[in-house]
């Protein structure tokens, strides 16, 4: 099945439409038990996009599967703040152009000096007017006990690190209402209404977002997706302003009366 997609992909992609992928490491050298920053760079041609961990209404998330030496571990993938792209009423979440997805690989504390191969099996879906699947086996080397060298990619990894949301939304509160949830926080809306990216598919209706602001608090209203089953206990995702993004991971307070979104 995968092979069939691969064949189709080669036929469908012109040379100018090819997406490239690369494994970046901050190394090559590291100490036993010390994490090494790594990243998977996916670079589709101009105007093409790939997808966030929740792709939105359509698309597929990029996947990374690590194949590491025995005893080595990789941390969970960290995703830079996505953008939303809309086509004919269908809203996708992801990255236009190049993105670097970040992680760390950690050798075991008793790792011996030497060179170690790192491998990442990566799949993605690149879309513009149409979509093309891609996959790649990416490799890099890490060494333990050598001279303390940094890779030129270390700077690139640091830059992308600043684009991964890490600060919790100040004073965040989520409350259920008849149509979905309200999310409020302490502070202004900053340059127009922000966009909420839910961690999980089928949570929020991606097309709707209204904001109000009063008394130092800002509230936005999130409409429950038609596809959501059951009632989530927490609201999880990223709230992105024009130039900053915050993490949201708060319990959902249940409504005391039948409130509706304005």
């Amino acid at each position, binding site marked *: 099945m995968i092979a069939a997609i691969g064949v189709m992909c080669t036929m469908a992609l012109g040379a100018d439409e090819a997406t490239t992928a690369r494994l970046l490491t901050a190394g090559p050298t590291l100490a036993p038990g010390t994490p090494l920053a790594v990243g998977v760079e996916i670079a589709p041609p101009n105007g093409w996009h790939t997808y966030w961990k929740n792709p939105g*209404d359509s698309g*597929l998330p990029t996947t990374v599967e690590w194949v590491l030496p025995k005893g080595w571990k990789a941390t969970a993938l960290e995703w830079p703040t996505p953008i939303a792209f809309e086509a*004919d009423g*269908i809203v996708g979440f992801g990255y236009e152009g190049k993105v670097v997805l970040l992680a760390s690989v950690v050798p075991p504390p008793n790792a011996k000096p030497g060179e170690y191969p790192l491998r990442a099996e990566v799949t993605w879906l690149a879309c513009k*007017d149409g979509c093309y699947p891609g996959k790649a086996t990416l490799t890099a080397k890490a060494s333990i006990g050598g001279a303390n060298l940094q890779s030129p990619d270390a700077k690139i990894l640091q830059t992308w690190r600043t684009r991964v949301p890490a600060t919790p939304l100040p004073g965040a509160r989520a409350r259920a209402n008849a149509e979905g949830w309200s999310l409020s926080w302490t502070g202004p809306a900053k340059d127009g209404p922000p966009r909420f990216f839910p961690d999980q598919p089928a949570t929020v209706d991606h097309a709707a977002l209204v904001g109000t602001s009063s008394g130092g608090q800002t509230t936005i209203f999130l409409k429950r997706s*038609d*596809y959501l089953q059951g009632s989530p206990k927490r609201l999880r995702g990223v709230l992105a302003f024009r130039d900053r993004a915050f993490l949201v991971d708060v319990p959902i307070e249940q409504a005391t009366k039948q409130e509706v979104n304005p």
Partner: protein
Amino acid sequence: MNAIIAALAVSLSNSPAPEAAPTFSLKGADGKEYRLEDYRGKYVVLEWWNHLCPIVARHYAAGNIQRQQKDLTGKGVIWLTIAGSAEGKQGFVTADEAKKIMAEKGGAPTAILLNPAGDVGMKYKAKTTPHMFLISPKGELLYDGAIDDNPSGRNKEVTDLLMKAYAEASSGQPVSTPKSQPYGCGIKYPS
């Protein structure tokens, strides 16, 4: 009076009554006109299709959709595959192309319907290819969502959600998952 009691019964029941499936009339790739109302008394499946979408291609390459088409049409279900890409966009097909491509893949829908105008997809709020709907013999929408719970195509355990909805409904049970988030390529509606 009866109507009032019926309305009360509906409002008191916990699970909402299924909505009526939007009606439509579309030209088939075989040149015939297909009206949803003509199939009252039968289960109807709608499959949004774009043969160039890699997720659709993955399901057809695995024989997955063809298997479901054969299984259900063998049980008397009407399976309508809807080519919903607008003219000039990825996946747009003429009647002849639609028939040829489906035949090459060994697909077995009851008919392929052509909807480059996208109006039927918009009525159903169809979002992706594939996006599946199951309609009851009374014309109610029983299922709206993904073909299965395997967006990545790499899960070992897969639940065919459309098939499950049909199995439940046709044995007189309520559909346990009436909606799920569809996955695939966005439908190429007219801009």
